[in-house]
């Protein structure tokens, strides 16, 4: 029996290389079966839906008749109001604007760039601590701890609390990656506890920052009185949790996929070692070639919408398969080739439209620094296992471990 395309996307057997499935899928740019979601797999169709105001990110607009095969343990704590990732304008715009006031231009143009030295310090600290160069798990030892530390510094979590923060983040991340052998109820409870503790911790920290503000982002968010007013504590909690969750697994996978891809293309790794400026186009091409967010499963139609000749009814669930759009030969020449020298690379790795990745400037910088430092310092690195073992998650796709070896670590 041949599997339906939907099952083939979810089938763990295709995790290491989902791209042939997407190629097949693109023959039907709008794929739909039974009561499942409408799966959109071609570049131009995805991009135009991301700019289509008839498409909502708010799950409350979903008609109950749709079955979502990805529905499972909810990824955000139901006790918190939805974060702006899952809101439509005007609430989305208001919260994103208020958050951005303390993160990016025009009001905070130096926030991300001002973290450059600190990020570099974190990266080199992690490389220093690698230990035995003969067997490195890049995920455990490098990619995983890196983004959590970064978010802690961004939010202003005191150093002595960072370890606790890592534990919660790990538990929450694991719940996003259902392991079929584990008891789902127990995993759900663990994640719920971690969320509750994280929420309580953050609530305490917010109180503390309201009394004694520092120059970190949480202090600014907690005390701001901008043109949009002040965020309520609940809004602030959801936003802080969003920054943590949205910026965690994604960055882990970008760095890990990045190193994996570089090790598979040693000539590019060699060029990056010689010229760290190549990190900029390398990271862009990675976001096209191996995007950490493979698909956006959370969009709903507010009206009947015709896409590529198919009428999608109001209230339907959409899956926008970013990773497939990124390999659409109608958009990118020779799409299955990893080529950091591409000139025209408007990939969908960060989404597009009003929800396009808020943390993109930070994510780019993190990945650029991480990959150029790894390229520079690992002597003669090689893969011990190819393909590596993957996480189950089909949406936030990436290796669970990346075992590599090298001859030594340069200073």
């Amino acid at each position, binding site marked *: 029996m041949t599997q339906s395309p939907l099952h083939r996307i979810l089938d763990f057997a295709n995790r290491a290389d989902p791209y042939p499935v997407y190629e097949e899928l693109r023959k039907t740019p709008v794929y739909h079966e039974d009561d499942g979601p409408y799966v959109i797999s071609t570049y131009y169709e995805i*991009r*135009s839906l991301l*700019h*289509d*105001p*008839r*498409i*909502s990110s708010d799950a409350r607009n979903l008609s109950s008749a749709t079955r979502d095969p990805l529905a499972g343990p909810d990824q955000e704590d139901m006790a918190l109001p939805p974060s702006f990732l899952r809101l*439509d*304008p*005007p609430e989305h*715009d208001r919260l994103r604007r208020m958050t951005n006031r303390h993160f990016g231009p025009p009001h905070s143009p130096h926030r991300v760039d001002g973290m450059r030295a600190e990020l570099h310090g974190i990266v080199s600290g992690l490389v220093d601590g690698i230990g035995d160069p003969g067997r490195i798990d890049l995920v455990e030892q490098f990619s995983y701890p890196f983004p959590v530390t970064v978010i802690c510094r961004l939010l202003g979590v005191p150093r002595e609390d960072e370890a606790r923060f890592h534990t919660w983040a790990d538990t929450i991340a694991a719940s996003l990656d259902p392991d079929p052998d584990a008891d789902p109820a127990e995993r759900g409870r663990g994640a719920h506890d971690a969320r509750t503790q994280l929420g309580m911790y953050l609530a305490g920290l917010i109180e503390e920052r309201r009394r004694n503000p520092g120059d970190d982002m949480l202090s600014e968010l907690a005390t701001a009185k901008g043109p949009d007013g002040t965020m309520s504590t609940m809004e602030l909690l959801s936003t802080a949790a969003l920054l943590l969750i949205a910026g965690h697994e994604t960055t882990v996978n970008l760095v890990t996929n990045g190193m994996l891809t570089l090790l598979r293309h040693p000539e590019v790794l060699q060029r990056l070692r010689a010229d760290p400026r190549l990190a900029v186009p390398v990271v862009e091409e990675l976001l096209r070639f191996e995007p950490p967010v493979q698909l956006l499963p959370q969009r709903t139609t*507010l*009206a*009947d*919408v015709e896409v590529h000749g198919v009428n999608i009814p109001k209230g339907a669930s959409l899956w926008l398969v970013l990773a497939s759009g990124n390999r659409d030969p109608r958009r990118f020449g020779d799409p299955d080739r990893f080529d950091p020298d591409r000139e025209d690379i408007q990939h969908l790795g960060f989404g597009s*439209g*009003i929800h*396009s990745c808020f943390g993109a400037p930070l994510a780019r910088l993190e990945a650029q620094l991480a990959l150029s430092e790894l390229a520079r310092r690992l002597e003669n690195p090689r893969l011990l296992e190819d393909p590596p073992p993957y996480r189950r998650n089909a949406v936030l796709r990436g290796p669970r471990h990346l075992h590599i070896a090298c001859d030594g670590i340069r200073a």
Partner: protein
Amino acid sequence: MLGDGSLERFRREGRIVVVGASLAGLRAAETLRDQGFAGSLTMIGAEPHEPYDRPPLSKQVLLGRASADRTALPRRRSVDANWRLGVPATGLDMAAKRVRLADGDEVPYDRLLISTGVRSRPWPHEDQAELDGVFVLRTRDDGAALARRLAEGPRRVLVIGAGFTGSEIASACCERGLAVTVAERGASPLVGALGGVVGAVAAELQREHGVDLRCGVMVTALEGDASGRVRAAQLSDGSTVEADVVIVSLGATRNTEWLAGSGLAAGPRGIACDAGCRAFDIRGIVTDDVYAAGDVARCPHPLFGYQFLSLEHWGNAVSQAGIAAHNMLSESTDRLPHMDVPAFWSAQFGVNIKSVGAPSLGTEILVAQGSLKEHRFVGVYGYQGRVIGAVAFDQARWLPFYQELIERTAPFPPPFPTVDRRSDGQRPVDADFPDPSVPTHGPTVTLSGYSPADRRMTFTPAH
């Protein structure tokens, strides 16, 4: 040029002359070289400067954040041209294929591109226009002089005309903490380009930022003091505004006078050309060796029933330049039409305004997303039951969607709900454009009928 190798020879050793060395001229030159033109390229420019960018002149430059001489356009590649800067072209002999220059030189060409753009319409009373402190803003030198004067901290600035440029100037003055009066003949700022509904939002923005905005009035006279410095302006409502800087922002005139008598279909509305940027002669016959691009061109556009369309838009200058250059080097079957949907942006009073299509041709508007009151919205313009334009205030990310509606000539009002639909957006209202028979200087998109030889004068200065 038929398949006899003459095109190949032209590409190898032909002579191309570009008159007007600014945005369109430079981008065309770059495309010519990109596409393999190896012959001689001459760039003739009236201004002494290398090609520079104008949008910053009314924005960063007036704020003192960038200096006017740092606005040079980034070069995409070297063009290896013979530059004749600071020497305007004064005539064209199409039969002899020569361009006459102000210094008496004549430059022969095989193919010619005209991209002479527009210039600011001056204050109509010459003696008043010459008062010290009276400015227009079109060139780098204008920008530098005005920025210098604003930095001296004038007591009050008067801006005459609240189109895009005038409004941006007023915004920059406010941001510099200067007292500003804006006098606009229409009912609100931007009314010619965006209509009265959106104009009312623009008016609110100005007033909230402290502009002394006076609409429905005309400036009738400027007065100077004994030393020849401007000191006040008389308004048609009988009032007087004391101002030591006056900026005349009454729209633009096409730079086509130098083509008078050449036989080219060039007039105050621009140079008529076909969809491939080839210029027409006055008999309505398209030439094969003279092309036009940018603000000076008027081209038939498929979205508007192939009526001639003139645009004063940065993006249009770039895309027409690319099309013209490509077509100059192509066999007739390989030529491309210019079909881009017009798009324009402006930054003023902290708001990013962007439009697509031709709002000024709309009769009705629907606020499809957001709210006028919050100054954050998407307005969709309808004309005869179809979507013809859209404007976004701080909502630009949605515009690609509306551009698609325009390209598909989708029905108006759009029959579907969208995110962020408010009470404003329940039904379309009259877009409230000024009577089209009363000329305004506001719109940056104008249609001028089907006749390539149309040389009617439409603007009658009311001042």
